[in-house]
């Protein structure tokens, strides 16, 4: 059971790290700001989300597991809304 949980953690954390990698590659390689914003949100939403998911089995208590989830939800919420605002600022800047 423990080994299974560890395996789950390793898989989730590796996947999360991969999304950070993908996000950074996107930031470096994509041609304009809007597509770079698209790449960034992958790191935000999936990268941190998967890392938090992977750490949940190792949490000391139910409360710290809950906190991990709240952290992720907060980042999702702010990332989503600020991306919207950043996109708007970009579009206005281009006009």
């Amino acid at each position, binding site marked *: 059971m423990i080994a299974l949980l560890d395996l789950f953690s390793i898989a989730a954390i590796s996947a999360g790290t991969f999304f950070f990698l993908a996000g950074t590659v996107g930031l470096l390689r994509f041609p304009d700001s809007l597509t770079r914003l698209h790449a960034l949100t992958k790191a935000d939403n999936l990268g941190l989300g998967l890392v938090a998911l992977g750490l949940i089995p190792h949490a000391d208590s139910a409360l710290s597991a809950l906190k991990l989830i709240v952290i992720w939800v907060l980042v999702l919420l702010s990332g989503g809304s600020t991306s919207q605002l950043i996109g708007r*600022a970009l579009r206005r800047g281009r006009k």
Partner: protein
Amino acid sequence: MNELLLAAAGLIVLMVAIGLARILLGSNDVERLMAVQLLGTGGIAALLLIAQATNVPGVEDVALGLALLAAFASIAFINLLDVDQGDAEA
């Protein structure tokens, strides 16, 4: 297991550092804002991983605070940026 957590944290920090350098040095203000957002997210992820590996207590609370503050900083910067744009149009 700990080595793995640290390796993941190191990789994330490295990625974030590359993104940060690329954007801070290169381009416009909006993209600089995106770099800070990436740093906030990546930093929180790395923080959680390192805390798990080195057994520093109470780091979830710090990460919670950081998540709040990253959102706070983004709002402040955006507030300023689109005020600027608005002025340009008026």
